């Protein structure tokens, strides 16, 4: 798979000395959905802003579709669509004219048919003659996406695209993003909703304090870092874990009513059968068992806490 976005040794130090990005290296493959996760202030928006031309880099190089974002900014930017985090819109414009304006900015001839297609795909066609100030927050978010798609970009940046939108709209947006990917559009999204990254991303990057600390395929990440746990719900509470079970490193929970065993699914013998047999031997009765697996959120939290 070829590279759509290449970031090399990128750094950003703002006036006043705050270092927002430190020597970032990142390649995004053509046609993939890449989720960039990170806590507030980690540098996600700064990274996107530099790529899109809103912030000057202090050092490093960025290419989009092989075009340098500084030396060949016209070619690079014409490939890019940006959906910003904030709901920044012109209140007095109509939906249709705002989207048409965006298309013109990117040097494309007017194409009402294409604009109609975009507006319909975002359920905005009925609102095309409405002033933007009359739209709900969710509608404004859709409008920003429509504006970003108005010039048929090959790479879309979604900066917290579903912040503050309801569940239904979020699902709609996920479907839209999947549809764009099927059309070959490369997508980089930043999000606080781990569920979003888990649902959509092919690869995940984690940024912390201006540094990329991890880039991995989502499945591999969850496989490598995901832990599985078996919880045994006891018939009678235990004051302490018997010495005979020390090898399992069990954790007492629910005031002694439950024992939790963390195991590695990669091992040939995870030890579950042995544990249950040893519980039986120790005379510890149980009424139920259940297993849980780490979510991406658990993995993310453990990474950024380090």
């Amino acid at each position, binding site marked *: 798979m070829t590279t759509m976005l290449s970031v090399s040794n990128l750094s950003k130090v703002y006036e006043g000395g705050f270092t927002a990005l430190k020597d970032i290296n990142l390649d995004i493959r053509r046609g993939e959905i890449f989720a960039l996760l990170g806590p507030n202030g980690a540098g996600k928006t700064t990274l996107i802003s530099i790529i899109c031309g*809103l912030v000057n880099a202090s050092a490093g190089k960025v290419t989009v579709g092989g075009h340098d974002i500084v030396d060949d*900014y016209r070619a690079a*930017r014409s490939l890019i669509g940006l959906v910003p985090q904030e709901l920044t819109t012109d209140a007095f414009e109509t939906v249709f004219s705002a989207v048409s304006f965006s298309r013109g900015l990117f040097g494309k001839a007017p194409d009402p048919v294409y604009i109609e297609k975009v507006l319909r795909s975002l359920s905005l066609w009925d609102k095309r003659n409405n002033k933007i100030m009359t739209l709900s927050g969710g509608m404004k978010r859709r409008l920003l996406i429509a504006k970003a798609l108005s010039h048929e970009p090959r790479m879309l940046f979604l900066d917290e695209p579903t912040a503050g939108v309801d569940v239904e709209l979020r699902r709609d947006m996920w479907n839209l993003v999947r549809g764009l990917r099927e059309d070959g559009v490369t997508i980089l999204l930043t999000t606080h909703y781990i569920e979003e990254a888990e649902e959509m991303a092919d690869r995940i990057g984690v940024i912390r304090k201006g540094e990329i600390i991890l880039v991995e395929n989502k499945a591999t990440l969850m496989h490598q870092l995901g832990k599985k746990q078996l919880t045994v719900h006891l018939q009678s509470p235990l004051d302490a874990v018997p010495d005979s079970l020390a090898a399992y490193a069990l954790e007492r929970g629910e005031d002694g009513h439950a024992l939790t065993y963390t195991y590695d699914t990669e091992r040939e013998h995870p030890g579950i059968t042995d544990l249950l047999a040893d519980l039986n031997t120790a005379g510890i009765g149980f009424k139920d068992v259940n297993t849980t697996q780490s979510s991406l959120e658990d993995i993310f939290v453990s990474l950024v806490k380090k």
Partner: protein
Amino acid sequence: MNLYAIKSIYRFEMARAWRTLTQSIISPVLSTSLYFVVFGAAIGSRIPEVDGVSYGSFIVPGLIMLSLLTQSISNASFGIYFPRFTGTIYEVLSAPVSYLEIVIAYVGAAASKSLILGVIILATAGLFVDLRIEHPFWMMLFFVLTAITFSLLGFIIGIWADGFEKLQLVPMLIVTPLTFLGGSFYSIKMLPPFWQTVTLFNPVVYLVSGFRWSFYGIADVSPALSLGMTVFFLVACIALVAWIFKTGYRLKP
């Protein structure tokens, strides 16, 4: 050149003027008409001719220049400040648009609006006083150059301002007083010699004088000097705008 982008920004800005027709066109025309009524008809009838021109006619170029300066600054400063204020500037900055194209679009729209307004005021003046334009080519040149220069100045103010108060600061506290004291309503020859010299430090004197010369062939300073000063202001503003874009001042951190 990204002509579609220039056209989009230009049309967007012009559409804003039409949306706010009262504020953009009707209000300045009304105020200028009031000047004609007060200074031209009421008071002007008691003032003798200035260099062979009736006082009502004499003030027409100054009044047009007053509107041209204030409206060019106001249109251009608001045009670029408002997207900065709302955050929609991100779209222009992330588009494949060069700085030159951005300036052409915003300044072109601001200058167009002021020129339209100037023509309307000129036509309105024709209803109140006798007008003649002795040098139509030079009149148009001063007219267009001044509109572009002060639209550029407005653009600079719109980028410099970090609040609506600052947006009004330069037009209200500097440009308007300079215009009033720049011979819009009088010939600087009417002033005592000392104040005539002081007035020559007011750049608006050269604009008003050159513009008035193109109407009636009378001037406080040489028309060539007026043109030279106008071009000098234009070049100074272009240089400042170029510096702004080169450094990203207040646009790109």
